[in-house]
């Protein structure tokens, strides 16, 4: 497989095949990001399609090749935000399916539900930290916010999540 550097050089010259090969290397991360921000497959597909076409169209504006990873992630986050703004989205769970779930699956769904219920700012911080693999300093630079804000958002987000997750059992946990 050709390196990201070589593929980027070719893609910037207009080689569509190289651009596709490049994006395919990030496909899983991009999908996990989009599916974490949006809840239905149709929206995920739309956001990813728009994001990839937009990146192809604007590749010439990428000044530093070393930032391709964060650059393409940023475009996707913008696309997901745009879908969310359009739909004023909220997540739903098909209650008819629930009784058929195994215990583990059911528990997983609860965690997913709690994750989905989080505010967008917390979700983005989690996505950038756990899925894209940025540290809090890099996330701060990415979002143009102080690193301290990001650290506190990651921590506060986990507390909120834990509280929501355990709410059904009547347990309240305060990490502060």
């Amino acid at each position, binding site marked *: 497989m050709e390196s990201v550097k070589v593929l980027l050089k070719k893609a910037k010259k*207009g*080689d*569509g*095949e190289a*651009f*596709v090969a490049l*994006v*395919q290397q990030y*496909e*899983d991360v991009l*999908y*996990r990001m989009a*599916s*974490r921000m949006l809840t239905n*497959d*149709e929206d*995920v*597909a*739309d956001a*990813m*399609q728009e994001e*990839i*076409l937009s990146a*192809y*169209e*604007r590749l010439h*504006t990428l*000044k530093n090749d070393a930032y391709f990873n964060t650059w393409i992630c*940023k*475009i996707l*986050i*913008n696309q997901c*935000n745009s879908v969310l703004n359009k739909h004023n989205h909220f997540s739903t769970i098909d209650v008819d399916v629930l009784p058929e779930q195994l215990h583990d699956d059911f*528990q*997983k769904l609860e*965690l*997913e539900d709690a*994750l989905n219920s989080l505010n967008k700012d917390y979700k983005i911080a*989690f996505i950038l930290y*756990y*899925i894209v693999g940025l540290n809090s300093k890099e996330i701060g*630079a*990415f*979002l*143009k916010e102080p690193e301290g804000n990001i650290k506190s958002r990651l921590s506060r987000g*986990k507390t909120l*999540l*834990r509280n929501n*997750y*355990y709410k059904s*059992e009547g347990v309240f946990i305060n990490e502060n």
Partner: protein
Amino acid sequence: MKTDFKKEFKQAMTEEKEIPSAVRKSLDSTYASIRTQSKMKKNRFIWKRVTAAACALLFTGILLTNERVIANINEFFKFGDKGIERALDEGFAQDSNSSASDQDVTITLQQNFSDANKIGMSFQLEFEDPRILDADVTDVTMDFRLKNGDGEYVDEFIPDTKPLKGTNKYDASGIAMHNPILNAKTGKVQFDVIIDSNKGMLPCLQDAVVEIESINVFRVFAFETLKKIDGKWDLAIMNQDMGKPMTIIEYTMDDPSSIIQVSSAKASPTSLNLIFSVDEIFDNESPFSHSMKFIDKDGNEYLTDGFNMDEQNNQTIIAANFPITAYHNAAKITFVLEGIGEVKLLTK
């Protein structure tokens, strides 16, 4: 019991997920679309042998005598292209004040120049509300089409999502652009563009118009990375002054039996366009990348930024522009293709 939240949470965030079929289908179709668009773009570079366009011989550039003005123009077109710099120093540029306003933005074409190898345009954009150029703005570009007086589109720099209006008959090879001035206080942006043709096929611009369709304001590291302002700004391009003939110097091979067969070598005001062939088909462009240069009698070297490569009758044909211009007035130059050979060229 939900006992290990930390572990479950990390697992939920990091677990691999199989891409569902609906998303897979959409991705594959997106990739197919990009491959098609890319092929269409590549077709623009396919070599088309045409009758040598001699119309450039008919026109001229205004000779600017004011040194201050020359210095300013050079500043505008600072692309690191020695050929263009030399042409501008020689006064090969047209002043213009063609202007249009829409969507609270006034765009003025300030200078332009053109020969068969390169077209240059320097625009000023003035935003009524300077706040649009905040600290996060890194680039301002435009989506535009350049249309000649005969209604033919010379080049179209627009997103792939918009249809082309022309037939690409002029085969422009590439475009370079930058913002030498981007002033958030005054709301003014300078936007300079160089269009080039590796095959020396650009037409004389006669009654040409730049049709601007959108302004793109790019940001880095902000949620809103691109602001697109759609509008209509049509700017007339000044015709070349007819007072003085534009010098074109043609070269011929000193040794016709050379391994490098030069079919055309013409020095225009901005650059020398060279088209040559070698009797071999190459799998990739590596033997030509970074290995082509001209050397003049003083030992100065002139390199190219890019080239077109094509195959015909078991030959590889290369077309490229080099920053040695008609103003150099060189009687003898040597073209070197490292690893393959060299050929001396003499003026016809």
